């Protein structure tokens, strides 16, 4: 395919330039599926096992070390999944938009596969942020759901994830699906700062940020510790699961390439 060749050569030209820089790592090497596939395979256990350990420690701290809250009682323990889930929902969306932008700029097909592997995990975290939020809202606010800025923009995030996934799945030509999906992912990224700052910009029922760079944390340090351990666990878990999924997507989309044939050949 001449089109692909010219794309590859333009990528190669940029990559040569980058690697010519003194001390520079050739990142484009990892943009090729045949290099990334085995690397991802080696990385999975390095994230999966720490995720399991961090979840175990995080749950222990959440229930047995952190004390009962003076005002909210034990209902506050939902925070240990609610906040990490909400963080992941936003971070994964930004990562998705980032890979889509890279894919659009450099024409690297792996970037789009990364984005498609991230979407279901991001959608699950978004759902969990909303679900745990509803279960926390009922005892503390007296309502499962209110149409305020924070909740509504998070719900829009869920629809953006689902829309992206549906659009990519609906198109037969993978290269067209990549580009159409990328437009949704990149345009939708504007929603992420809206979610984040919604509690400042609008008068909402939702409380302000629990952790911020500019002020001291508003919660007891052991509670904060539990939440951060759970957040780290969520990070490690998400990376592991996304790497497994991206490998599956790579196998499916690259099934007719030489590197897949070779990889199957080398299997015992």
């Amino acid at each position, binding site marked *: 395919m001449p089109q692909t060749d010219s794309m590859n050569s333009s990528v190669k030209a940029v990559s040569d330039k980058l690697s010519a820089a003194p001390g520079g790592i050739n990142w484009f090497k990892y943009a090729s599926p045949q290099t990334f596939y085995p690397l991802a395979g080696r990385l999975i256990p390095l994230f999966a096992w720490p995720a399991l350990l961090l979840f175990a420690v995080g749950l222990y701290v959440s229930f047995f070390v952190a004390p009962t809250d003076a005002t909210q009682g034990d209902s506050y323990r939902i925070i240990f999944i*609610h906040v990490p889930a909400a963080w992941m929902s936003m971070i994964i969306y930004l990562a998705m938009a980032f890979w889509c932008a890279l894919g659009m700029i450099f024409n690297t097909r792996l970037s789009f596969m990364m984005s498609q592997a991230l979407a279901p995990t991001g959608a699950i975290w978004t759902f969990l942020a909303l679900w745990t939020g509803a*279960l926390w809202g009922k005892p503390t606010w007296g309502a499962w759901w209110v149409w305020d800025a924070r909740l509504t923009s998070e719900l829009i995030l869920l629809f953006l994830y689902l829309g992206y996934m549906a659009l990519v799945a609906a198109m037969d030509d993978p290269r067209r699906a990549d580009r159409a999906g990328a437009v949704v992912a990149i345009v939708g990224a504007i929603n992420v700062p809206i979610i984040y700052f919604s509690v400042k910009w609008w008068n909402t029922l939702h409380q302000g940020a629990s952790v911020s760079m500019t002020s001291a944390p508003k919660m007891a340090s052991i509670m904060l510790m539990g939440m951060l351990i759970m957040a780290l666990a969520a990070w490690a878990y998400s990376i592991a699961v996304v790497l497994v999924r991206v490998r599956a997507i790579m*196998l499916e989309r690259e099934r007719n390439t030489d590197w897949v044939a070779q990889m*199957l050949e080398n299997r015992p």
Partner: protein
Amino acid sequence: MNWASWGDFWNMGGYGLYVWGSYAVTLVCVFAEVVSVRRQFSGQMVRLLRVRRATVRGAGNETET
């Protein structure tokens, strides 16, 4: 220790439904996602290996006859 007994623990100070409802659904989602991605991967692998075996056998037959 926060809890005097298991009953105390499950009761969560009267918020059991909300707290356990959150944690249970999270566990179910995480478990389902892990199972689903592993299935997706091994499904692709099995399919590719089957196709390869079929083509290798096909090529073998051709050379024999």
